[in-house]
Structures are given as structure tokens and as C-alpha cells.
């Protein structure tokens, strides 16, 4: 299925269809991740790939136009040969790789046994993905959060957010009563689900990244079905910018807090009475920081693209 979708994306000319197909592609990929036991990753891919990324792409093609003109000096043969040769070399390279699902593969020998065997006792939470993400590899995750924040700063400095001061005339664009009522019914549950994913991420699949994306989806749905003005009044971009920065601050601040408590940077064991309680508290706090940054970043990105499109009209 994934392969067929990819072929369709390669062949198609209509950008709208391509963007929709790439959303389907992400959803299929999420299904494959579930069958490969990567529930957290599937969760993220479904909400990010099929949700936010499709919306942002659509907002962009709304500005740039739908059709792809054929290149005048078209040459398909040379790229095809280059791609085939590269692919053949890579296939040759896989001949030495360990077989699929082989438990003795080198990837499972290094640090993974420690994560699997020790982490439920050391960290005290059953979801190993969360404990590796937030505790063992806390530095990495902090770097990722900073990258997300930096991308936000980049987008804002490139296209910025144009806040609409004008109250929209509610007669045009035509009112969408069915969509608006349905959205009002859905949004509380989406937000509730986001909070559940945020604070239950220690035990089940989920965590700050997924929760942040789901939360922002609720606001995006509101903005899409009502208007940009309503969305920005609900979540003023000025406040969102401060919140996005403070999410990073919470993460880094937790690191400083652990140093002040006498530990090393991001070693949460010193935060609580026992090491496990400290780990638990630390993970909860930094996951909150992650969720805050991701949610506000996604909302700001959406506002930036949408407001750019509207001001062109």
C-alpha cells in the first residue's frame, strides 16, 4: 500500500491530490509502526504527518497555486538511471545486514538491554520509551525541543504573523453551521484526550510531543471552522510566543534545578525523597515543558501560514 501510494505521488501532477496522498501515506506509515510495536512513534506520525503537516501544506498551496507545469527541458532517463544505481548499491549493502526481527542483531546488544531490564526499576515507570526519552537521553530531547523552537523563530522571522484587527463579517464566508456545531462537540474531547496523553504518558503510549500536537489540533480545528479572528482571540499569538519560550525554559530550568540540588544536569534522582520519586517528578515536569513548547509552536506555525494566505486575498 505504501509503495503504491508513493508511486501515485511520483506520477501525479495535481498538487492538491499529492498533498492529500501524502496525508494518507503518513496514516499508512503509522499503521505499519503499530505492527512493528512502535506505538509511541505511530501516535506521533498519525497526529503530525496526517494532521498538522497536511494542514500546513494546504495552507501553502493556497498561496502558491495548485498546478504543476511540466518542465520545458524534461529529462527523465538520467535521474532514473542515477536513482536505480544508487538503489542497487544500497540493496547490495543490505546483504550483510541482520535479518528482520532477528533478536541477536547488533542493535539489540548495546544499551537496549539496560533500558529494557533496568528502567522499570530505576525510573519507576512502565513506558520505556518515555523513560529513555525523558531521563536517559534527556540531553537529546532537550536539543530536539530547542530545534523545534528555533524552527519556529525561523518561520516567524521569514513570514511572521499578521494579526487581523478587523472583526470578520459573519455572513461571508458563508456560515458553516454543521461544521461549527460538530467542531464545538469535538473540541472538548480532543483537549481532554491531549491532557490524558500528556499526563498518562508515563504508563501508556504518549507524552509531551504527542499531547502538544493533539492540543494544537483542537485549536486549529476551531480556527478552521470559525475564523482566524476567533482563533487568535482565543489564543493570542503574543501570549503563545511567551509560552513557547517558557516551555524551553522549563526544560532547561529543570536541569539547573537538579544542579542546585547537588546532582548533575538533568539527573532527576535528587529531586525527590527517593530516586524513583525524583525521576517521576522530573519526567513529569520536563514532559510538561515539551508539551507546552510543541503545542504553542504548532499553533503559531499554523497562524503564521494562514494569516499570510488571508492577507494576500
Amino acid at each position, binding site marked *: 500500500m505504501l509503495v503504491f501510494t508513493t*508511486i501515485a505521488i*511520483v506520477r501525479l501532477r495535481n498538487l492538491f491530490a499529492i498533498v492529500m496522498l501524502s496525508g494518507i501515506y503518513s496514516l499508512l506509515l503509522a499503521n505499519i509502526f503499530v505492527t512493528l510495536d512502535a506505538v509511541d512513534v505511530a501516535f506521533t506520525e498519525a497526529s503530525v504527518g496526517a494532521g498538522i503537516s497536511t494542514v*500546513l501544506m494546504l495552507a501553502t498551496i493556497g498561496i502558491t497555486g495548485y498546478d504543476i507545469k511540466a518542465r520545458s527541458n524534461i529529462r527523465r532517463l538520467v535521474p532514473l538511471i542515477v536513482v536505480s544505481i544508487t538503489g542497487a548499491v544500497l540493496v547490495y549493502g543490505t546483504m550483510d545486514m541482520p*535479518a528482520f526481527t532477528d533478536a541477536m542483531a547488533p542493535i539489540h546488544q548495546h544499551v537496549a538491554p539496560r533500558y529494557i531490564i533496568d528502567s522499570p526499576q530505576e525510573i519507576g515507570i512502565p*513506558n520505556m520509551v518515555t523513560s529513555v*526519552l525523558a531521563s536517559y537521553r534527556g540531553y537529546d530531547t532537550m536539543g530536539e525541543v530547542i530545534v523545534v523552537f528555533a524552527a519556529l523563530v525561523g518561520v516567524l522571522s521569514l513570514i511572521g504573523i499578521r494579526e487581523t484587527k478587523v472583526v470578520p463579517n459573519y455572513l461571508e464566508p458563508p456560515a458553516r453551521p454543521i461544521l461549527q456545531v460538530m467542531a464545538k462537540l469535538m473540541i472538548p474531547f480532543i483537549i481532554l484526550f491531549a491532557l490524558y496523553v500528556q499526563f498518562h504518558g508515563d504508563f501508556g503510549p504518549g507524552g509531551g*510531543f504527542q499531547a502538544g500536537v493533539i492540543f494544537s489540533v483542537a485549536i486549529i480545528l476551531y480556527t478552521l471552522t470559525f475564523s482566524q479572528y476567533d482563533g487568535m482571540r482565543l489564543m493570542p499569538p503574543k501570549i503563545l510566543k511567551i509560552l513557547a519560550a517558557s516551555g524551553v525554559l522549563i526544560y532547561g530550568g529543570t536541569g539547573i534545578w537538579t544542579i542546585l540540588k547537588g546532582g548533575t544536569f538533568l539527573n532527576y534522582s535528587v529531586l525527590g525523597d527517593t530516586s524513583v520519586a525524583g525521576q517521576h517528578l522530573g519526567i513529569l515536569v520536563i514532559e510538561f515543558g515539551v508539551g507546552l513548547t510543541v503545542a504553542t509552536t504548532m499553533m503559531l506555525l499554523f497562524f503564521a501560514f494562514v494569516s499570510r494566505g488571508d492577507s494576500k486575498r
Partner: protein
Amino acid sequence: MISLELYNYWVVIFLMMAGFYILITSNHLIKKIIGLNIFQTSVFMLYISMGKVAGGTAPIAVEGVSNYSNPLPHVLILTAIVVGIATTSLALALVIRIKEAYGSVQEDEILEMDQIADHGKAEDEDNQADSSGASSK
């Protein structure tokens, strides 16, 4: 030696090459970004499929289960997906700026405009100022 044991890598390679092909051949900048995304997801697939263990279950500790898939690639890819959308949106923002500066998102048209901007004034040796002048108009 050649058997279906390695088919996960071959799917990954096919996806990667399809993304690469879109990146080379397509003329439209947004389609190029989608190609880049497919390339990126093929790497996600590679990591996740390597983390799978036969008979293993999702890495959430449950009593009575001792065989888990490897959690480390999951962590790496989870964060990579979120970083991926952030960088994709940066690319889309650049596309919007290109559209505003050039009035087009077709690669060949943009290159043509750059050619004209660079060589329109033949004596002018300051090409840098020329092209930046074109993009800021």
C-alpha cells in the same frame, strides 16, 4: 543468502529512492519538499523496523512479558518526526517568500529569472547585489 529476511530494507530503499527521484525530477518546490518528506520517512521506517524483535511486544513493561522490542529507535524517531514537521514548515515558509519575490514556485522559471537578473546588465560585476535586488522587490 537472498531471501525475504531482508525485505524491510528493500521497502525502505524503494521509498528512499522514490523520494530522491521526486526531488531530482520535479519542477515544483512544494513537490520537492514532499519528496524530501518521503525520503525522511524511509529513514524512520529503517530505524523502527530494525528495532522490531520477533515475538516481542511494545516496550511498555507488563507483568509476565519479558520480550520487548527495542525502545531506543522509537525514542530517536519520535523526536525526529516532530523536528521533521518543524523543519518542513521552515521550508514551506521559504517557498512562500520565494513565491512573493519571484511570483513563481517553478524551479526552471526561477532559474531563468536569476539568469536574467545576473546577466541582464552585462557590465555589472556585482551579481550578488543584483539578485538580492530582484528578491527584495
